[in-house]
């Protein structure tokens, strides 16, 4: 089975929590990248959203893939591979090859579905994708908003239909249908 990192919610009570989707997703990706192994440097382990946020900026607001890549390289010695406008078939293949990925999505695509973890929110968002299920092509998505904070809110990783993830990625403002902005972990599988 593909290595599964622990789920990290962004709504953890920390500073900037509701703009920490990218740091939370990168915390999970970093855990996957290292298969849970502490680099034994002078930073805390395991990866948590506030540490990544604090490394990026003292201000709140959205963060991008490049800022998070730089932060997790410094904190956890994790070297993510960022690629923009990745064709969907290519993205699928990289996930099947044994990599996880942080992807940029537009939440308006998720809002009408049972995977909506923040009713009313339709903006840009980042989630961590861990693996693809061969039987139906679904993807195991770690949405940092899916913390089960009340009834009706999903909790933890969920299997999203491939078509849903594809549409959500393609609806991101600078992408287009069939394209993905993603930051990949290394191939962690034996």
């Amino acid at each position, binding site marked *: 089975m593909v290595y599964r990192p622990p789920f990290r919610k962004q709504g953890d009570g920390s500073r900037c929590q509701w703009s920490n989707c990218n740091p939370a997703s990168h915390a999970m990706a970093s855990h996957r990248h290292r298969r849970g192994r502490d680099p034994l440097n002078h930073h805390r382990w395991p990866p948590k959203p506030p540490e990544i946020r604090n490394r990026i900026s003292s201000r709140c607001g959205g963060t991008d893939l490049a800022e998070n890549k730089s932060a997790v390289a410094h904190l956890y010695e994790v070297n993510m591979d960022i*690629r923009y*406008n990745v064709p969907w078939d290519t993205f699928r*293949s990289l996930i*099947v090859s044994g990599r996880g990925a942080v992807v940029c999505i537009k939440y308006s695509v998720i809002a009408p579905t049972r995977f909506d973890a923040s009713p009313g929110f339709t*903006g840009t968002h980042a989630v961590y994708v861990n693996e693809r299920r061969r039987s139906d092509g679904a993807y195991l998505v770690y949405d940092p908003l899916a913390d089960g904070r009340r009834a009706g809110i999903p909790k933890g990783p969920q299997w999203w239909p491939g078509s849903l993830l594809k549409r959500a990625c393609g609806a991101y403002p*600078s*992408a287009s249908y069939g394209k993905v*902005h993603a930051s990949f972990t290394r191939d962690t599988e034996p």
Partner: protein
Amino acid sequence: MPKPIPPDPDAPVEEHRKFARQYLASRSNKVKPVNHPGNDKVPEDDDYRPADYDPEDV
């Protein structure tokens, strides 16, 4: 160098691994998305806070 083509999703994992290595080696991460001056950065006024957010819930 010919552009690598992704294998069928049901192909053996080794084929996907080979493709992934070729793809990542052939594409620079310096290629930035066009038509988005913010370069993926979410505008400061794009509020991530869930509409139903209640501090007591966290």
